[in-house]
């Protein structure tokens, strides 16, 4: 059964590119438009990986990660940030919040697929 990835980003075009890239690699992709939407969808269905942006309305990425790590079902689910942010300070915050990796936009589809495969197979 195909593994499922939750892609959280307030940019529709970015979600489209992520879904295109990961579906081509055989993954199922659920899209969320911001952190709040992502949290609700994550609660509805436990996914295999969460891929989230940082700067979003209603709930940002770091807050989403902290909220997910507070759920028993998301203690071990890998969470990757996919964001324009690249500072060491932000990465440290992401790591402290519970992120397992940091990808800086723009992403290359092949590299994205490789890192996802490395993380969840």
């Amino acid at each position, binding site marked *: 059964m195909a593994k499922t990835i939750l892609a959280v*980003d307030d*940019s529709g*075009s*970015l979600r489209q*590119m992520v879904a*295109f*890239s990961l579906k081509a690699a055989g993954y199922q992709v659920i899209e969320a438009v911001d952190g709040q939407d992502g949290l609700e969808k994550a609660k509805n269905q436990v996914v295999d990986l969460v891929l989230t942006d*940082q*700067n979003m309305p209603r709930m940002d990425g770091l807050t989403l990660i902290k909220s997910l790590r507070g759920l028993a079902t998301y203690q071990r689910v890998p969470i990757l940030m996919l*964001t*324009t*942010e*690249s500072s060491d300070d932000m*990465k440290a915050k992401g*790591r402290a919040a519970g*992120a*397992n*990796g*940091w*990808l*800086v*936009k*723009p*992403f*290359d*589809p*092949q*590299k994205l697929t490789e*890192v996802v495969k*490395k*993380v969840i197979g």
Partner: protein
Amino acid sequence: MSKKKMLGPQVKQLLSGVSDHGSAHLSEVETDLAQTALLLGEAIEKLGFSFMALHTAVSKEHDEIDFVIHSGFVPDASVDRLKNIQLEIEQHINTAVTCLQFQDLTSQLISRTMQRCEGLREVLNVLGVAGEDMPQDSETDDIAFLLRETTSRLEKQSADLKNLLRKAVHQKHLDSGDIELF
């Protein structure tokens, strides 16, 4: 001491503040717009190249398939060529997908610029309101107080605007970003 002389420092401080803060914010607007233009230019150039390259690859693929159909057999050389063409197409699509993310990056920069313009409009509104609130026959001390208050308010607004508009997009090219697993 004349009225003009007593209000001089406050007026000077206010004008200087408006000029300095205004210039600083407009410099940021210029920087963001220039960065947006760079990213857009590169995106269009690369997407144009990807489109032409994909078109060429697909044409080659069609030619190869036509040859196979008309010849009635599939030589190993054709299989190899088709596999190479598929790899080419995949590479060009990857490049295009990377470049198509320009919309996300540039929309963040544009949003930042619009918020800053809105912030600057509010600053000008503050000045307008301060002017309207100043009665024609105000005492010097009252005017001086109003000018100090206005200057202070503008400084706070400028600082708040800077904090609100922390720069999150530093990309000046559409090369794929770093990946780090913790």
